[in-house]
Each structure stands twice: as C-alpha cells, then as structure tokens.
C-alpha cells in the first residue's frame, strides 16, 4: 500500500472533517443548538402573538353612553344594559373597563377595577397634533430586542464553539493524541483544521438561525421588520464568519498553554471576557451613538456593533466595509500569533506554559 504525500490543505480538510463529525455526534451540542434555534423561533412567534393581543382592549359600554368609541381602533366593545351589569363585568375581569353614562361635562365616565386604564384613557383623549423633526426610525422596544438578539446569538455561538475548540485542543494534549498527530502533520495544519471545522459549524448554526428567523417573521406577517432587519442580518453573518475565526484562534492558542481540562477555564476566561463585553455593551448602550460607533470598529465587538448601526440606519455605506477590513486584518494577525503559541506549547506537558515562552518558542 502506498502513501502519497498529503498537501497542507488536505491535512487541514481531514482535521476539520473530524472536528465537525465529533461535534455533530455529541448529543449535548445537538440539543443546545436546537434549543437556541427554537428559542429564536419562539421569541418571534410569541412576539407576534403579543403584538396582536395588545391591540384590542375589552370594554363594556352601557346603552345610552355617548358614542365616543366610534372611529377608535384597538377597542373591543360589548354593549350592556345597565351600569350595574357593566360593573359586574369589570369585577369578573371579563372586560378591562366600562363606559357608563355620567352627568359631567363629557356625558360618560370610565370604570376600572384597580388602576386607571391609561391606554384606553389616552385613546379617548383629545390630543394635539405632533410633528417630529427627527423621527426615531424604530420604536425603542424593538431596537432593544434586535440588539439583544444580535448580542445573544453572537455571545452564545462564540462561547459554545470557542469552548469546543479549547476543549478539543486540551483533549488532544491530555490524551497525548497530539504526539501522533504532530508526527504525521504540521502543527499549523492541525490548528487550521480545528479553527475551520468549528467556524464552519458555528457559521452554519448562525445561518440556520437566520433562515428560521426570516421564515418565522414572514409567516407571522411581520414583513416590515423583516425588510428592515434583512441587510443587518446579512452583515451580521459576514462579520461573524471572520470574527469567529479571530476568537477561535485565540481560544485554541490559549488552551494549548495547559495540559488538563481542569485548567482550561483559567486560560480561556480572558477570551470569554472579550466575548461578553460586546454583549453587555450592546444590551445597555444600544441607543448610544458614540458607544455603538466605537463598538462597530473594535474587532471583538464589530460583529454585533456594525449590524446594529446598519439596522438603525446610522452607518454610511462604506463603514461596514472598512470595519470588516479591520476585523480581517486583526484576524490574520491573531491567527499568525496564535499558530506560533500553539506550535510552541503543544508538546509541553505538565504545568501551564508561560505566554512569553510560548511566543519565543
């Protein structure tokens, strides 16, 4: 039987293929991926149901009350015979409020159970016309939810797959499989295979989530949201593809410094912080132009920051391109440095390798 010299990239392909298979075979991974997808699906469906429900306030109207509900949207009126009957419906919580005749100026009053029904009252109020000079493009709650969505998906995917890479690097060191692997292929091919294998999986998961979310939005009749989200989702995927490679290289290099699973946490926690910071920033500062502007150019937070700005419509057309170029350049640098650390630490067993030693070799 003859062995042919394997090219670097076919070695990489074999390693990536094994990483993907091993991951897909893990029940824990499949289940957590399903939960994430179902979570996204559920939040869209529930959101859609909730938004439909808020529109109709059940109100009892006593016969003879001035017709103030005509032309008012969002009220489900039930006509009843007497004030007593209307009160009973309110007490039974069959309706949120009742309109009953009154001798006052308006000719009717509102009866409610324990608090003023503000929504109804404002619907019945006379309001002056308001002209907004700079209208907010989307409502605040929606902005918050979109920010949370991008942040959470980035955070969960990066942590899940980053931890996977770290574990798989240490597993090979701990079981010493790495000696066999490195005697067969270059360390760099091993690292590249791991990073690519996990990046492919992570990206596939993101794409599946995007497709599920798109389908769910379309099916629940939220086309408006879909149209405004579309471009930012596509950019999110592009940024994630590059940004994840950056994180993966850092996770792999950090994990190579230790030889036991118990020690993985201590070396990867700084990287985990790098992933968590953009998540918290986007949740708390999604309405802050300055913070978002900075986030959209810092390589670790750009995958969340830039799509957010695109969604808000505050990014110029060239900004995502420039930011993506910065992420690509940072990733290239991190991969080179990470490969060096990985190569130099891989066969050092026992205690934790000092970062300086790993870089010098």
């Amino acid at each position: 039987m003859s062995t042919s010299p394997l090219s670097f990239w076919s070695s990489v392909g074999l390693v990536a293929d094994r990483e993907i298979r091993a991951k897909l075979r893990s029940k824990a991974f499949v289940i957590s991926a399903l939960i994430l997808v179902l979570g996204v699906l559920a939040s869209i469906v529930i959101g859609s149901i909730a938004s439909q429900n808020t529109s109709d306030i059940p109100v009892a109207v006593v016969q003879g009350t001035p017709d103030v509900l005509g032309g008012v949207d969002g009220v489900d009126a039930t006509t009843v015979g007497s004030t007593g009957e209307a009160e009973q419906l309110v007490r039974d919580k069959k309706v949120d409020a009742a309109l009953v005749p009154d001798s006052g100026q308006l000719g009717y009053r509102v009866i409610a159970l324990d608090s003023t029904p503000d929504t109804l009252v404002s619907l019945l109020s006379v309001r002056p016309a308001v002209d907004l000079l700079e209208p907010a493009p989307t409502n605040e709650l929606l902005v918050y939810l979109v920010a949370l969505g991008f942040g959470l998906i980035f955070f969960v995917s990066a942590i899940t797959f980053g931890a996977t890479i770290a574990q798989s690097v240490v597993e090979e060191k701990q079981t010493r499989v790495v000696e066999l692997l490195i005697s067969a292929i270059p360390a760099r091919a091993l690292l590249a295979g791991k990073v690519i294998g996990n990046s492919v999986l992570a990206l596939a998961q993101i794409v599946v989530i995007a497709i599920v979310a798109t389908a769910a939005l379309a099916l629940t009749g939220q086309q408006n949201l879909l149209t405004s989200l579309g471009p930012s989702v596509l950019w999110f995927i592009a940024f994630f593809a590059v940004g994840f490679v950056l994180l993966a290289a850092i996770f792999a290099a950090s994990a190579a410094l230790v030889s036991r699973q118990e020690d993985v946490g201590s070396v990867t926690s700084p990287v985990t912080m790098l992933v968590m910071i953009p998540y918290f920033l986007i949740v708390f500062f999604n309405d802050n132009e300055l913070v978002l502007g900075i986030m959209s150019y810092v390589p670790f937070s750009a995958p969340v920051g830039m799509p957010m700005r695109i969604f808000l419509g505050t990014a110029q057309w060239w900004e995502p391109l420039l930011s993506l170029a910065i992420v690509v350049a940072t990733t290239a640098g991190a991969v080179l440095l990470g490969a060096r650390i990985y190569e130099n630490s891989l066969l050092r067993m026992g205690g934790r390798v000092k970062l300086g030693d790993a870089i010098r070799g």
Partner: protein
Amino acid sequence: MIAIDHVTKRFGERLALDEVTFEIGGGRLTGFVGANGAGKTTTMRVILGLLRPDSGGVTLDGRAVTPGDRRRFGYMPEERGLYPKMKVAEQIEYLGRLRGLTKVAAAGATAELLARLELDARANDTVESLSLGNQQRAQIAAALVHDPEVLILDEPFSGLDPLAVDAVVGVLQERAARGVPVLFSSHQLELVERLCDDLVIISAGTIRAAGAAERLRTDNSTPAWELLTGEDSGWLRAEPGVLVREFGAGWALFEADEATAQRILRSAVGRGSVVSFTRSRPSLAQIFTEVVK
C-alpha cells in the same frame, strides 16, 4: 537504516541527551533499554521530529530525514493517546489518512490490522469502552496502519497480557522481516533479550552500549562456562587459569578463556561422564547492570 548522529538536547539546565549516536538497522529489531529518565523518550521524540535537537541530527539511508519521510514513520508514544470518544476503526482510519492513505486504503489496512490484533470485534466501539490491554492493541494498530517504513515504539509491551504480547511480537517481527527498521523501548528485559537483534543501552543521556545483542554479551562479560558431570567437580579449583564462581555436587560455573575451557572439557571427559558443557551467557539484566554501572 536510521542513524542518530551525535544528538544533544538540553531542557534548560538539564542535559537530556549527550552526543547520542547509534543506528537502527533495516530489517532488525533494536531494543532500547535504560532506566526511567535516561533519555529514551526524548531520543524517540527527536527521531520523530517532535523535538528539535540542539545539535546533531537523524539520517535515513544516509540523508537528513525530512518531514515527508517522517510521515511514513510509525510511532507509538509512551503515554498512550487516542480520542476516547471516537470509534476504534474510525480513529485508526483517520490516523492512516493523516499519514497519506486514501480513504479506501485506510479502511482496508485498518480492517486487516484489527483482525490481526484480534480487535475486529471491537472495531465499532469507542476507545474509552475498551479494556486497557485492548486500548494498547488499538494504539499499536494506529502505529502500523500506514505500513510505516520505520517503526519507533515507546514501551509497546507495557500493560499487555502474554497473549497480546505474542500477537504484537508477531506483527513486529513480520514488519522487520520486510526490511523495516524497528526501535522499541522496554523495561521488560527478558522480552528484549528474547526478541532483539540489536541493543542500545542508554543511561543519563549517554549511550553506554550499542550493537548486535550477541556481541554485547561477549564484549561485556568474562567468558564463563557451565559443567555438569556425574562426578565430583572439586578438581576444577586446582586447574590453572580457572576461576570457579560457583559449584555444587557434579556442577560448576567457572571463568576461563577459550583454550583453557577446551582443556577442561577434555579433562572432564577423561574423568568420567559429562552431562553437559555450555558457555554460560550473561542475561541482559546482568549486562545492563554491568554497562550502566
């Protein structure tokens, strides 16, 4: 043939290998013995290219070993390692493919080896579910799957039951018979003694003896003879040129040169019946103690 040529390796202050030089002949089983920490594993890692020596080098058939050559080496590390959650056959195929086998060739070689090592019934079990002895067999299969041109095995027999030892010995001898240079380390000196054509003895990073096992025996011991007769053997003590080491009724172990030994044999035959007269061969354990001292 693999030649290790004046290899020196330091770990910080510690001199792990000091001008290590020896050869692993094609078609020969070479035993590598030494105490723990003597430098066996470090030497093997240098041969495999896992460690870069500070000076010296390794040649294959007279030229420096390249990464391409090393890919066709078979290696069994001392600290065993396979992926615990991967199936045995799948794992060995994977390692074969990393060494350049096609998918089909890797599958064929794996099936054949697992059958040979009597592990075929467990081919689809995960490595972690195997007994230690069977994990060991899987490890050996991983070293052999790509039909290596050179075999470097660190303690291949540790943890194996006698039947498994025989199976592995059979496989190694078969490879050697095809002309593959085989180097293996072991603490089981009787086994090394039984198997090896050549021996390399290392102590504290220095090669103390290397060469054909037979020659090492003769070189490192004074010729001794064992005489078994029906008669009393007390007369031996009076013979010139003879140093009696031990004796009992009708039995004696003595040191003497070749000519004296022949004279003693004739004289013994003259005195009565000789049951046996043999050259006493020092055991490897004795040589080892002698050489390392």
